[in-house]
């Protein structure tokens, strides 16, 4: 009976396109994975400041009954929070108290394979619906008030190694997501589904087929198992009507002999028309990657003068160790600079293509190359603050031993062509949160961490940056200086990105750690 009484708390309002377009203007909500279409991962709330952050206290916690990694970023709409649990469950919570309103539990077939854990990173919301892309490669629409399934569309057969792990992107009347599976020789794609019916409206293959642009960048039949998976949410520019997606590694990972060529559109960003899925441009960060340096980082959209000219840009700190500034209308390379130690390239040429150093590819004996296999940064979020005009990146310093091995494609099996070792070369590893000048990639400050973090960062208009650590701390830093303001030990690894919202007028900051979701505030 009790849940019945709780129902009135649930927002009655629809989530409209207008609201999604103006998400950053209503900071009490957090309407999509990266906060707004520009993926700034910035909260406009100002209550928490460097002066009072030391007084942050736990407001509530939610304990999930899971052992898998908890990577969710909550979405909050008018007092209701939506989170995902691994493998592919959705839970609605009262955002003020953490009380559970409903839960959607998805039964997983036993062999749904994901390289690095049956994880999920969050939902998308629109109208009366909430959407999840599942580990068994379905797109599912649920009723926002009850969790009831409205439709359930198979994206593709999961058995050959396809899965859904990232939060979908909602644009107009379509919900968009791609498939993970870069370690299984999949052929990556991005799909758009009609929000009302679940019918597929378009598909873009991140590995072009015969006759398509870029097909000739794959030797022989290698395109069929080319990978280029999708596992992080895209961004959207409503004026250009373009969505931006970072794509993952080509398959097999560490042995490129069977896939000679640049291997488009792996390790790239693709700009796709939101209505048709048509490619407007692409930019490949790592042509013919052999280090598993997926470009599955959040693509941040900024407007700023570059060398004296106002530009609409896309900025990203890539797993390959370089920071990039691109013109997001054309894909033109504007600027690039290494933001961590890297030993594989002399630099970037004037079109942004890496100038490779010889002898830096994986070998049978193992080759020590920087950055490490998980990259200079990974999927965990960066953040841009319009208040400080700084771009914050969680970084991973250190190298890996890269081994080249054999690869033999069989559906549903790992197709990696090698492996790596970190333990033997971890002596100089460390982590940091770095603040970069968004135009130049120059470092403004650094906050060192003992261990490379799997936690993302969040900046707030109050002048605080939130970060997490692999040894279980959640912390607040001064956004202007990186000074440590506050920290708390949450007792489990932080493998998620923080977000902020307001409940009853008070600012809250939420982070998943271990198997719990923790919510902090001042009052």
């Amino acid at each position: 009976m009790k849940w019945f009484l709780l129902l009135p708390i649930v927002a009655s309002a629809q989530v409209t396109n207008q609201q999604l377009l103006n998400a950053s203007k209503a900071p009490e909500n957090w309407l999509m994975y990266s906060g707004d279409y520009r993926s700034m991962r910035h909260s406009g709330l100002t209550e928490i400041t460097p002066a009072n952050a030391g007084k942050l206290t736990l407001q509530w916690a939610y304990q999930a009954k899971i052992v898998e990694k908890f990577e969710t970023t909550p979405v909050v709409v008018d007092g209701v929070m939506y989170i995902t649990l691994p493998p592919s469950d959705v839970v609605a919570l009262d955002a003020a108290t953490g009380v559970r309103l409903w839960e959607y539990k998805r039964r997983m077939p036993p062999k749904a394979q994901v390289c690095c854990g049956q994880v999920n990173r969050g939902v998308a919301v629109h109208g009366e619906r909430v959407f999840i892309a599942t580990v068994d490669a379905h797109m599912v629409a649920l009723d926002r008030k009850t969790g009831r399934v409205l439709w359930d569309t198979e994206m593709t057969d999961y058995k050959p190694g396809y899965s859904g792990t990232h939060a979908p992107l909602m644009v107009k009347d379509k919900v968009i997501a791609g498939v993970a599976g870069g370690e299984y020789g999949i052929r990556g794609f991005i799909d758009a589904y009609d929000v009302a019916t679940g019918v597929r409206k378009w598909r873009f293959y991140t590995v072009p087929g015969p006759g398509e642009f870029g097909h000739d960048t794959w030797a022989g039949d290698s395109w069929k198992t080319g990978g280029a998976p999708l596992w992080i949410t895209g961004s959207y520019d409503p004026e250009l009507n373009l969505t931006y997606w970072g794509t993952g590694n080509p398959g097999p990972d560490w042995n490129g002999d069977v896939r000679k060529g640049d291997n488009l559109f792996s390790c790239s960003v693709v700009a796709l028309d939101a209505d048709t899925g048509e490619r407007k441009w692409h930019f490949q960060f790592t042509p013919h990657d052999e280090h598993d340096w997926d470009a599955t980082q959040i693509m941040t959209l900024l407007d700023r003068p570059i060398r004296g000219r106002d530009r609409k840009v896309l900025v990203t700190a890539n797993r390959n160790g370089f920071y990039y500034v691109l013109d997001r209308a054309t894909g033109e390379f504007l600027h690039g600079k290494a933001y961590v130690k890297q030993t594989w390239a002399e630099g970037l040429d004037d079109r942004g293509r890496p100038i490779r150093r010889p002898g830096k590819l994986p070998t049978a004996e193992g080759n020590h190359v920087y950055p490490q296999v998980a990259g200079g940064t990974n999927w965990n979020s960066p953040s841009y603050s319009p208040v400080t005009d700084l771009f914050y990146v969680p970084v991973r310093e250190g190298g890996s031993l890269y081994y080249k091995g054999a690869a033999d494609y069989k559906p549903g099996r790992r197709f990696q062509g090698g492996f790596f070792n970190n333990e033997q070369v971890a002596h100089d590893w460390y982590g940091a949160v770095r603040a970069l000048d968004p135009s130049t990639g120059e470092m403004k400050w650094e906050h060192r961490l003992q261990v490379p973090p799997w936690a993302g960062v969040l900046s707030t208009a109050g002048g605080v940056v939130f970060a997490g650590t692999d040894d279980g701390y959640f912390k607040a830093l001064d956004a202007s200086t990186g000074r440590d303001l506050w920290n708390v030990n949450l007792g489990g690894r932080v493998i998620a990105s923080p977000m902020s919202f307001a409940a009853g007028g008070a600012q809250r900051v939420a982070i998943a750690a271990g198997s719990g979701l923790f919510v902090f505030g001042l009052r």
Partner: protein
Amino acid sequence: MRLLFALLATGVYAQTRESNPYSLKDAAALAHGKQLYSYYCVFCHGMDGVSGRGAQLASTYRKHGSSDREMYRTIADGVPGTEMSGHWIDEDEIWKIVLFVRQFEAGAAAKRCAAPGDAARGESIFNGKGGCRNCHSKTSRLGPDLAGIGASRSIEHLRESIVEPDKAISRAYRVARLKTVNGESVRGILLNQDEYTVHVLDAAERIRSFRRTQLAELALPKESPMPSYAKTLQASEIDDVLAFLCAGGSR
């Protein structure tokens, strides 16, 4: 009936046998198993069954069961809630992989202990002059209990542990040397070091807790808490201690 159906429906490659049709003498099957292992398992378990981030396979201990049937299930269905997912590999190939993993076990078991010394003399050195018991007993916290150690370690490993303990140090017994801002020096076993704190177990078996801000120096030298006995014990005495350890170790 429903259960049966569910099992059949989920397992495309159903298991038809309870035990491995291949034997370790079958060189072709073993070679194929090794190749398959290098495709699908090396990533987490290492080619040697030791160096990966998954479970140590070069061991005779199996948390999830060591019968053929159990090993098959572990590989086919995975270990729920861990990185070890199930594998879509056909039955014949899984058996060959099991065979290759068995070879690790054979290797681990072949390194059985045998030493020329006198076990009774070794025991008195262990308890007396060697001072081994101070650290190695059921109750000491300063080193692992060595009861039964002979069953799982080779003689070379045991000898090296006594003569050159710094060569391979177990992760559970890393040494920390630190100096506080007040000038106190502490050497102990590292229990934790994280972003803000450091904990060590000192020689008196006290847990010492420090904030990093309290420390002037912190070093994690590559040394074992255990001293080398290369100079303090004679070769024959070391043989005696080894014989004692092989025969069962401290009781």
